[in-house]
Structures are given as structure tokens and as C-alpha cells.
């Protein structure tokens, strides 16, 4: 009786469809990680457990409470980014980490959640009076951290944070005229942006266009991952049987390039299964957003859902040679605690919004 009660209390904020999809994705991840890097299976189980606990904790926080966090988390995040720019550790040629003495944090990671939280909160506050001015302010709030991250330089994360903020602005209803105008001016500014890119960033884009130009150097990663995907065929080579993966032709095979391992060993069938799981997850997120009670929750749920989509698209696009190489893990599948926790905070928020959809309605 007591046990049943406890279980009910524990499971109360959990959304069964989301939980089911998350469980399926996590199982898939364990399967692939164990093939890509068998030694890491224990660590990944632990990461998963931590992420689930965090998710459960977040899920029971009511959205109103989340609103309180929005401003302090965002301001804190921006301050940390400034601190990184001033005192950050340099690793692999970029200043991304802040050494707090007992641990190293990557403030740009915080921004992935803090940004939509902040903008959703901001739009909620000005709900009754959304004019162009509010959008301009929102754009400035968005661009400040994005520029800081881009200067680290970490263009990949900057674009993801930009996307997250943009989704909120888009869903908040910025008029199509302005959106189209922005798109046109972005295209016009492309040559200028190109000239502002770092050499390594430019070469990544050039590599995408013609990977065979430097097959043993810059093109190596993308050529090898494309070969892995293509040679997987329809049914794949089988678990642990991918020659590209097992003979170490795929770089970062348990993290950013894990999709190449999945593709090689499980083929088009495995890829399709992954696409379906993502589509269902995104669909569920969209439903939660559509039914959310307040502007804040609507914008937050919608943008989190689209962030999941963005990560999935950018990673799969990059590994299969459609997009330039940026450091984005495959959501729910790649090995690594930080990104998994971030993702499950998002899931937790979605669950919380769904659970509390009736309570906040007045």
C-alpha cells in the first residue's frame, strides 16, 4: 500500500507518452553506445539515471515557479559568458570553459534552456501589448549571448541558441512581413558574415561542399561518416559489425558522430526508426504546446520541442554530409551527461506544462 502510494506520487507528474518515447530513445542509445564504445556503457547508464532524476525534479515544478527562474538564470548565464570572455580556459583553440576551481562549466550550455525561458517570460510579461518595440527588445536579449558565444568562438552553439530564441519570437507571432524582410537581409548580409568567419569555420563550410578536396585532412571525418552511412545499406551490417565504426574510421564515434555508427550497423531501417521516434516526440511536444494554458507555457513548450528537432536535424545533417561540421550531439543518443541532462530538463519542463495545463487556467 505504501509502495503503491509512493509510486503514484513519483509517477504523478510524468507524461506517459513522453516517458515511453524517451525510454525507447534511451534504450536505442544504450544499444548504439555499447557498440560504439562498450566500456562506456556503465557511465552512460549513470548519465541516464541522473538525467531521469533531473527530469522528474523539473517535472514537478509548476510553470509559474519556472517563470521566477527565467530572469535570474538568464542574467547569470550572460554574466558567466562575459566571465568566460575575460578569464575563460582555452581548450582546442576556443575559450569556452570557465574554471570555478572545483569544476569547469560551459555557460553556453546553460543558454540553451535559459534563452527560451527568458524570451517566453518576456513575452508573457508584455502579453497584452506586443508591439514592434517588444520584438526589438527580444531580439537584443537574444543577440547579446549569441554574439558572446559566437566570439568564443563556438559558432555551432551560437546558432543553436539563436535558433532557440528565434523559435520563441516566431511563435510569439512576429509578422510574416518582418520575417521575410529579415530573411532577405540575412541573405544580403551573407558575404559580410562570410568575411567575418574564422578560417577554420570557412574551411568547414568548404569541406562540406567538397570533402574529397582534402580526403586525409579536413574532409576525412565527413568522408568516413558518409561511407559508414552508405555502406550500411537497407538493413545495416548488424550490431558490432560496422567496419567503419569498429576499425576506428569514424571519429568521435560515441559522441557527435554516433549517428554514423547507428546508420552503418542498423541501416536505413534503423535510421527510419530513429526518425519516427523523433517525429513522435516532436509531435507530442507540439500537442503539449498547442494545449498549453498561458503564452509563457505555449512559447516555452513550442520552442523546446523545436530545439529537439533542431539538434536532431543539425546532427544528422552534419554526419550525412548535408550541413557543415558543428559540435552538436545527436539528442538522446550521443554519449555524454551534460547534453543528456539539458535535454531531459526540457522533457521535464514539457511534462510540467502538460500536468499543470488545467490548474493555471483561470
Amino acid at each position, binding site marked *: 500500500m505504501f509502495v503503491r502510494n509512493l509510486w503514484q506520487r513519483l509517477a504523478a507528474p510524468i507524461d506517459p507518452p513522453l516517458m515511453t518515447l524517451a525510454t525507447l530513445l534511451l534504450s536505442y542509445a544504450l544499444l548504439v553506445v555499447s557498440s560504439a564504445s562498450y566500456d562506456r556503457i556503465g557511465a552512460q547508464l549513470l548519465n541516464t539515471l541522473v538525467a531521469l532524476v533531473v527530469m522528474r525534479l523539473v517535472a514537478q515544478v509548476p510553470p509559474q515557479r519556472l517563470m521566477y527562474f527565467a530572469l535570474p538564470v538568464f542574467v547569470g548565464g550572460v554574466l558567466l559568458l562575459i566571465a568566460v570572455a575575460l578569464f575563460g580556459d582555452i581548450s582546442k583553440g576556443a575559450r569556452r570553459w570557465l574554471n570555478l576551481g572545483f569544476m569547469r562549466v560551459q555557460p553556453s550550455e546553460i543558454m540553451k534552456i535559459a534563452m527560451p525561458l527568458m524570451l517566453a517570460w518576456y513575452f508573457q510579461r508584455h502579453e497584452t501589448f506586443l508591439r514592434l518595440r517588444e520584438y526589438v527588445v527580444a531580439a537584443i536579449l537574444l543577440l547579446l549571448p549569441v554574439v558572446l558565444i559566437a566570439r568564443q568562438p563556438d559558432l555551432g552553439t551560437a546558432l543553436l541558441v539563436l535558433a532557440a530564441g528565434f523559435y520563441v519570437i516566431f511563435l510569439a507571432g512576429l509578422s510574416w512581413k518582418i520575417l521575410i524582410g529579415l530573411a532577405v537581409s540575412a541573405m544580403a548580409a551573407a558575404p559580410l558574415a562570410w568575411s567575418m568567419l574564422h578560417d577554420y569555420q570557412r574551411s568547414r563550410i568548404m569541406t562540406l561542399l567538397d570533402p574529397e578536396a582534402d580526403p586525409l585532412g579536413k574532409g576525412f571525418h565527413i568522408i568516413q561518416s558518409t561511407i559508414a552511412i552508405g555502406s550500411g545499406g537497407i538493413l545495416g551490417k548488424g550490431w558490432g559489425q560496422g567496419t*567503419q565504426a569498429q576499425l576506428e574510421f569514424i571519429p568521435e564515434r560515441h559522441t557527435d558522430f554516433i549517428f554514423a555508427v547507428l546508420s552503418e550497423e542498423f541501416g536505413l531501417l534503423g535510421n527510419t526508426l530513429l526518425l519516427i521516434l523523433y517525429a513522435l516526440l516532436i509531435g507530442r511536444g507540439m500537442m503539449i504546446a498547442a494545449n498549453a494554458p498561458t503564452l509563457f507555457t505555449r512559447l516555452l513548450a513550442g520552442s523546446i520541442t523545436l530545439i529537439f528537432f533542431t539538434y536532431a536535424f543539425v546532427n544528422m545533417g552534419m554526419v550525412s554530409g548535408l550541413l557543415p561540421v558543428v559540435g552538436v550531439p545527436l539528442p538522446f543518443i550521443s554519449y555524454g551527461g551534460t547534453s543528456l541532462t539539458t535535454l531531459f530538463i526540457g522533457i521535464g519542463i514539457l511534462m510540467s506544462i502538460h500536468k499543470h495545463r488545467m490548474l493555471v487556467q483561470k
Partner: protein
Amino acid sequence: MEFKNPEQEIVRFQRRLAVASGFVLVIFILLFARFFWLQVVQYSYYQTRAEDNRISLVPITPNRGLILDRNGVVMARNYSAYTLEITPARAGDLETVIDGLSRVIEIQPRDRKRFKKLLEESKNFESLPIRTRLTDEEVAKFIAHRYRFPGVDIKARLFRQYPYNESASHLLGYIGRINDRDLDRIEEKDAEPNYRGTEHFGKTGLEQKYEFELHGQTGFEKVEVDAGGRAVRVLSRVPPVSGNNLTLTVDFKLQEVAERAFGDRRGALVAIDPASGGILALVSVPGYDPNMFVEGIDPQNWDALNNSPDKPMVNRALNGTYPPGSTFKPYMALAALEIGKRTPQQTIFDPGFYSFGGHVFRDDKKGGHGTVDMYQSIVQSCDTYYYMLANDLGIDNIASFMRQFGFGQRTGVDLEGESEGVLPSQEWKRKHFKKPEQQRWFAGETISIGIGQGYNAYTPIQMAQAVATLANNGVMYRPHIVKSIADAKTGVAVSIEPKPLRTIPLKPQDIETIKQAMIGVNREGTGARAFAGAEYVSAGKTGTAQVYSLKGEKYTEGHVAEHMRDHALFIAFAPAEQPRIALAVVVENGGFGATAAAPIARQVLDYYLLGKLPKAPPPEAAAEDEGD
């Protein structure tokens, strides 16, 4: 902006959501299309590339074919030994590495020098030997210290070995590490795939000529490798096919007898089976040890070989050109008979000299030979007879007759780099000299041609081919060294069938006249002393070729510097009635043919025909003037 209606707001939000969902759907379809393209449409292309990635072909070098003499004596073979090899690209600072190695295993300065030379000549990524022929103890010592030397490995390899060292060195040649010139030859033959992993190439002699027979077919191991190029496992193996074995016409024992007969004198000997052109012995002394070249010769030995005044690296049998001296006389006599300028019975009177155009050509014998017919002219080697004959025949008749016997032309023996020699004629002089005043042939120049002097210059192998053709009654064969080539796998030997090059139209009675005179040489003439007591009938002719012209002075051997002394020559065949062996001997600066060259021929014939090994060292030339 107007006041917001919450209902309208929600509809608008949901419309935006719908647009986003549509975008998501489009992107997912795009991704699926990309996967479909890669995994279904392009599948076989990427499948192949993945296989290429993981599979590496490792060549397995075949065993080089053996070289055997006609009786199966192995003259070139392979043996397995350990070498200590450094891969320069992986080893770091070479000096430090070698210093470190020298504390574990003995490394001589000459090893270092040789390594340096190899390094300069090497293609970039190969491993190069710093020490060869390690003992088991040395191998064990190194293995204990191996962890300290990355890029240094012990390798078990097959080495080429020439067990008889200097014997037959010019005949066999040697192999050495492949250089750029060898690579060009490999390219010409389109043999690059078959030479993957091969490090040696025939440089001279038979090793060079028959390189592509001896090399064999390279095998391959299909190995699965990881991205770092490390072999993970062997998938399949195509074994190499050993090179073909060469069986020679050469009788190695005979070769040794002939080489020993020279003692420490310089010279060449070529012995041929007249009925087939098969070379029985091909001697050029001094020789060199071909084993030194296999793993790269050290600069010290190389300089010693190259700077030696004895020129041990020159194959005198093919590249030494000598005036034939009196060994030319039997051919001159034959020409006279064939052209009709002399009969065998016709005599001349020899006062001891011959005057032509105000110039006196001296006979070797003071006071002359008196009345001399053709037989005596050969047996006693009368110069005056041939001065006159040369003048009667004229240079162009002599040249066109001699050309039939192969004088002044490459014989086409199966070795590279044969010299042509000089068969003098009016045309040759026109072509050979640049200044117009030198291009004219003077009748006086014909006179000394008659006794094998003047511009005459032939290789020992040409002389041997000529005497073999004479012994074989004008039927001429191309001299050859390889008798058959045996497939190492099936053991099937393909014989190289001797084919007559041509038959010189000669009257049988003329040949008989000349042969009888040559038999007379060894019975009662200039060769009689060397062939005293022989148990077979042999035919021969001595010769002494002037190296240095003594203006009117009497030539006395003891008074002339060694390198200006005359070359001693001898040609012979035996048994006279059914010749089985014909040979030409040249002893450089040996003095008289009768005393220096003929005894060598005697030892060779005795061994070949009777199996008799010489007992005493070669009889020393007694400086007794008995004509040549």
C-alpha cells in the same frame, strides 16, 4: 496595436505551430531522402569504399629463382637470416637511435656508412638494414631491449648468396637494392604490381639479364586494418610463386679449374660447346665477391674495387677488347684459300722482314723462317707470310671475310653490355675518325692487320665464338649461358634450343687444311710444349698481342714494365676430329701466348675431356724465345 483577443491569440499560435510542424516534416523527409540516396541508391559505391578502407593488400615477396650449373651445382641461392632494420620515418633522430643500438648490438663504422648510403638512395617509407646476418644471441639481446627503439625491428628475410664468392662473379652478377634506374626498367615492363614489396633487383650478369625470370610472382595477404593502418587480422592469402630456376650450360667445376689456372694473373677465358653455342666457362679474372653488393656495399670496399689497377669490376670476357695477334692467322689463311689468293702448297720465302712503301715489317724470328707454305706459316707462326697475304687480299676482303666469323660484332650472348670491338675496314675508318686526313685507309695499315695487330680489337667471347665456328665447320651458334629455365612450382623446365645463326659457305677441304695446321701447332709447333703428352688430339693457335710498340728495339720481357708487356692469347678446340669444346684465352700482359696462355687452355681441356685436375701450379713461363 489593437487589444488582444485570447481566443484569436491561441488560433494564431496554433497556426504558427502548424507551420513549424510542416517545416519539421519537410526536413525529416529531406533527411530520409538523403539516407535513401546514400544507403540504397549509392549503396554499392560506399560498400566498396568501406571495403577498400578496411582491407589492405600486403605483398609477400617470392623466393628468387636459383642459378645452377649444368650438373646441378648451386651457384646462387637464398638463405634465411635476421636483419636489424630501421624505418627512418618512425625512428626519430637516427644518430641517437644508432648510438643506442650500438650499445646493445655491435655496429661497425662500415655498417653506419652503408646505412647512410642506403638512406640517401631510398624511397621514403621503407625500412633499411643497419645490421645484417644477426646471430641468434644478437636477436635475443635486441628483443630484450626492443621497447626502447620504436621504428627498429628484427626481420627474418631471405638473402641472396653466392656460395662460391669470387668464382664466376662476372657471369652471375649480383642483385642490389632497387634504385631509380631499376624502377624505370620495372615500369617499362609494366611490372610494378609484381614488384610491390620487392627490395632487390638484378644489377649485372645473369641476375640482371634474367631478372624477370628469377623474380617470381609476388603473393598477397589480404589484411583487415584499422584507421591507424594496424593489421587486425588476415582475411585471405595468395601465396607467392617462387622465381624460375636457371640451369646453365656452364660447367662450374670447369669454370673453377679455368679460374685457378690463371693464378693471380689478369685475363679472360671463354669456352664454348661448338655444336650448340653453350658456354662451358666464362672467366674474367680478377673477380669480386658479389655477396658484398646484396645489402649495399660499404664505401670503403666500393672504392677499393673501383680504384684497383686490376679493374676487377670489368668483365673482360665481354668488355675487354684485345688485338688477336697470331690467333688471327688461321682465319687469314682460310680467307686466302676461299678467295683463291693462295693454295696450301704455294710457298713464300721469308728473309725475316717484309718491306712495304719504304717501311720494314719485321718477322718475329731473326733471319726469317726461310721457305714457308701455308701449313708451316700457321705451325711456326710466320709473320712475313701474313704481311704478304694481307697485302694481296686487301683490307676490304679481309674485313668482309672476318665479319662472317663474328669479329667486331656483338655475339648476342645472354648478358648485358657486351662490347663490339673493332673490325677494321675502309668504311670503319671513315665512320670512326672525324678529321678527313685520318679517314683515309693507307695500304700500309693493311699489313699489320694480317698478323692480328693494328686496329684489330676483339672481345674474348668473339674470339671463342669464331674458333667454335671454325671447329664446327662454319656452322655458327649464338653463344648462350642459360640452358633451361625451370618453373619453380611445376618443375617443368623449358630448354633454350640452340639454333644455328648461319652457316658460313666454306669448302670442306679448305677447313680441313686449316684444322690440320692447327693440329700441327699443338703437335709440333708453338703449342707443342704446352700440349706435350696430351691423350687427345687438339687444335690450337698461339698469339701474342702487342700492347706497346717498340720502335725497332728487340722486345725483352724482363725489361718492359708489367702493364706494357704483350698480351698472351691462345685459341683451341678438341678433340680435333669431333670437337666438344672450343676456347679462347687472353692473359693480360702475360707475354707469349705459348707459355702464358696455352698452358691454361691445356688444363681446361684436360679437365673437360678427361676429368683430370691439374696437379702442380701452372708452369711458369720460361722466357725462352721460341716464336709465338
